[in-house]
């Protein structure tokens, strides 16, 4: 065991894991965090805490993760390299692990021009793969990034990374995942999957490369709320592919039935993903729709969560 985290135990035991996602508030409103915790607790094995996602300023991922721990829910602290250089990254990792955080997801981060501080200067001192490699080294070799200097203490982290089979060049994507696994990723979570055929092709190559044996691959799913959101995502969100068939299903149902249809599609997707070789779990991103997590996972027969 690298971290003794619940997520690591569930995955190592060979259980089909479920992670959720919690976006911290755009301020310090603790009640908003607690409300989401209430909706997720008991439904998932761990919860990703986003780090200023889409470059919008929010309560810090570390602080929110600590609130989760205090409330009895396990966090996956996300960390982006957009806002921190290697000094801040390592310092934050020491602080986070001292506070009891055991899972960390290494990301490059959405570009700051998308967010609410578009005039900000970015950092990108290192990239996401270099971050994975650096954290692995902190944990396994107890050395600071890029040096032979020893750290004081132990960094017990279950190291995660993200992958996106739906961004070009498609044929390169399994190899990029391989690079993340080689750098030290223990688990990886994908971008939202809607194009099942494309994902299966990706997984075939990933398994041929042996990646499913070297790390835990988790498939990302996001329930669609309505036809408007579906069309918007299909057209405007880079790196997300929604097949016409799904757009049609969401558009063909009456407005008041759209949410139900979205959940139905999501449950079907989860069932299909469970059958794919190499998929060890799902990452359910019910963004600002946490109240549906219990329902989705009940329908998908993924509750109750295993106690390990």
């Amino acid at each position, binding site marked *: 065991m690298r971290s003794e985290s619940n997520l690591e135990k569930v995955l190592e035991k060979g259980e089909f894991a479920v992670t959720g996602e919690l976006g911290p508030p755009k301020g310090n409103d603790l009640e908003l965090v607690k409300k989401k915790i209430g909706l997720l607790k008991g439904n998932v094995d761990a919860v990703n805490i986003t780090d200023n996602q889409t470059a919008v300023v929010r309560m810090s991922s570390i602080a929110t993760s600590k609130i989760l721990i205090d409330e009895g829910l396990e966090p996956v602290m996300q960390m982006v390299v957009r806002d921190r250089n290697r000094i801040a990254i390592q310092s934050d990792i020491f602080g986070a692990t001292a506070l009891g955080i055991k899972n960390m997801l290494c990301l490059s981060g959405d570009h700051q021009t998308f967010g609410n501080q578009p005039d900000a200067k970015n950092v990108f001192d290192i990239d996401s793969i270099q971050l994975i490699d650096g954290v692995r080294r902190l944990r396994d070799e107890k050395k600071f990034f890029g040096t032979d200097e020893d750290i004081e203490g132990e960094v017990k982290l279950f190291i995660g990374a993200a*992958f996106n089979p739906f961004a070009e*060049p498609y044929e390169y994507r399994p190899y990029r995942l391989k690079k993340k696994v080689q750098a030290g990723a223990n688990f990886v979570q994908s971008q939202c999957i809607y194009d099942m055929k494309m994902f299966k092709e990706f997984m075939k190559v990933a398994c041929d490369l042996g990646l499913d044996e070297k790390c835990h691959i988790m498939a990302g799913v996001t329930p669609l709320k309505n036809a408007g959101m579906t069309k918007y995502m299909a057209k405007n969100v880079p790196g997300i592919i929604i097949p016409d068939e799904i757009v049609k299903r969401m558009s063909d149902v009456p407005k008041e039935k759209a949410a139900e249809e979205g959940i139905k599609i999501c449950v079907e997707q989860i069932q299909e993903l469970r059958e794919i070789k190499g998929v060890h779990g799902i990452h359910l991103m019910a963004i600002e729709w946490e109240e549906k997590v219990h329902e989705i996972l009940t329908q998908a027969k993924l509750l109750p969560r295993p106690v390990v």
Partner: protein
Amino acid sequence: MIVGDRKPIEEIKEMLTPYKKILLVGCGTCISVCMTGGEKEVGILASELRIISDLEKKGWEITEDTIQRQCEREYIEPLKEKFDQADVVMSMACGVGVQYMAEVFPHKIVLPAVNTTFYGTNVAEGEWQERCAGCGDCVLDKTLGICPVARCSKGLFNGPCGGTDKGKCEVNKDLDCAWYLIYNRLKEHGKLDMLDEVMSIRSWKSSLHGGPRKRVREEAQK
């Protein structure tokens, strides 16, 4: 070449308001080739300023000159007399020119008329694109001539992020994804295996992050 944009006329007007005798100096090298601050552009700005001066009774007397390079002392020194006669000097060169003219003639204030933007090239008529960030540790051998530092919006070293969209960068649909270009170039040359290697954490000491840079070459010193 160094590429720049001329500052908006309102900003230039505000800078020049306290002065009467203005020497406007263009540069005949990069900034002239990128059509921002050469002889022609000096003439255009001078005409604009004269019209403003007439309309708004600024009382400006504008003198124009363009030298070959504002980054070399031997081209700046012959301007001594014109500098002496002016209340202020406005440079249409890159930031190097503005600073170096002020260093050569420290008794005079030199104002910038240009925002220096990037090291780039003229890819098509009227279009310039950034190519180099001057980071001091070139990796173009690993990417077959496409710079991830200058041309990837996130400066990534290990392949494309998840935001590549139809070969374009997620930041701007008019911008090519540098890693998409690098991938295709490596593929064209049968060198995709070069992408397998994890490019490790680099030192930024060679860039501006190690403090302002200087080079002393003994063989060039007398």
